[in-house]
């Protein structure tokens, strides 16, 4: 299993053969509550690290999604159209959002497991 990295905006990313899989974290899904809708990009869209690539809407809020990496959208999780609750149920597995063909290396700004845990523990209440 490839190592998982995180953003300060609560996305995660894993990379295998320069294909990055992106989702939102367990912490983020718990904070959002029931996810009811996702607006995701089209395949082929070019993203810079930090670009907003979509919107996630829960019963509580609508939030932008930010790309942890630079690259081209290769795949979008279509099953979320009918079952957005997969993001709540399995955020690191079936609830992934998009896959991106990396354009270069992972940025330096990403957090590792320990770094992200420290961030969320600081934010928990």
């Amino acid at each position, binding site marked *: 299993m490839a190592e998982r990295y995180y953003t300060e905006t609560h996305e995660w990313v894993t990379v295998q053969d320069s294909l990055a899989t992106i989702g939102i974290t367990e912490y983020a899904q718990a904070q959002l509550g029931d996810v*009811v*809708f996702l*607006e995701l990009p089209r395949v082929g869209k070019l993203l810079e690290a930090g670009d907003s690539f979509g*919107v996630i*809407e829960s019963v509580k*809020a*609508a939030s*932008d999604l930010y790309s942890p990496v630079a690259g081209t959208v290769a795949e979008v999780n279509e099953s979320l159209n009918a079952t957005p609750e997969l993001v709540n149920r399995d955020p690191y597995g079936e609830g992934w959002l998009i896959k991106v063909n990396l354009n270069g290396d992972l940025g330096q700004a990403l957090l590792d497991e320990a770094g992200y845990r420290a961030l969320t523990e600081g934010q928990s209440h």
Partner: protein
Amino acid sequence: MPYLVHAADDRKQMLDTVGVGSVDDLLIDIPPSIRSRELDLPDGLSEGETMRLIRGLAGRNRVFEDRFWFRGGGVYRRFIPAAVSAVTSKPEFYTAYTPYQPEASQGTLQAIFEFQTLIAELTGMDVANASLYDGATALAEAAMMAVVETGRQQVVVAGHLHPEYLEVLRCYSDGRGFEIRAGLDDVGADTAAVLFQQPNFLGLLEDAAGLTELAHRNGALSVAAVDPISLGLIAPPGEYDADIAVGEGQQLGLAPSFGGPHLGFIACRRDLMRRLPGRLVGSTVDGSNRRGFVLTLTAREQHIRRAKATSNICTNHSLCALAASVYLTYMGPEGLRHIADVSYQRAHALAEQLTAVPGIELAFPDREFLNEFPLRMFHVEQSLASMREAGILGGLPVGRWYPDLDGVMVFCCTEVNDPDSIRTLVEVLSQSARAVTVPPVASRFPEGLPR
């Protein structure tokens, strides 16, 4: 409720609290030279005097009898059943300001839900919102939906769109930074939507299915601005696969009223639902499993999505929408078809009789129309004046918007124009045509030639 001004004691107390001696002391930053001294207003009038004054002013309006209106152009005279005002004038509806709290406003929310259902059925679309301001803003909102949905920055207007709708569209496009083109040749990979009006501003039917196909072939959305009454006769946008249907709902039980308030409606395909502007009411069940109504999908809206919302509309024309709901329910599908058919028959009878008058012909003889049609007239100003003298409001001259249509007047018939009024109009224009004098031709002889 009477307006109670502050008593002298109240004013003194407020001034003391602020720490100044008089109201003028509050205005010392404004140079005395530009301060107004006294408002030059006449003394107040009694209720009786006020009524007399207002009636006198109103009497200066030229009011044509309903059946002698032959002008449409976006606002129409139609028969409004008494049931409409009987329901809309109920204080529960009439005096409430857009109350959306489900625990307090089930009646209002249900009325809006019924309106949405009626509009969705009428247009043949999957979902309609709680209403917008008018047909023009509804069209502009639809253009924005298409721009956001496709990520493209250009919309193409096909055919003769209401010129005021175009102005509103321009106003929106300035703010949102999308471009408006007017030729079908411009439909391409950058086009977010093809917008058209059915029937168009001149009353002519557009090839709605063809325009929709053109839009789809280029990955654009098809946006139809439709006349709701016409849908009693012709295929609704859902049938020719349009993506968004909008329109002006004034004809559905609302008086022309100097141009407003009227009623915009907007409906779309299910997968565009989250791009819809404004309020949406949904049906649900409460804790005891009883049916109830609530606002739904509010995360689309500006108070949640902020700058990224498709639209800044967070309200609706509730009372006007209620009038439309009562009208449509009262008419039913059969009634609506009947109204549309009578209007069609009368307009075609009028067109036939008027084109028999010398100097009057159809401006577009090869095009089909429903109840509004453009005529090329012998003398626009003179014929309008002779109709006016006979108590008739003639057609709308459209030359001021379209120079190539100078001399063209768009006539309109609805069910209120009875056969007698049509006969009168034809007589007046026949006489006027006979009386038209040929203007003298200026002499063009070279100098020295005339004797």
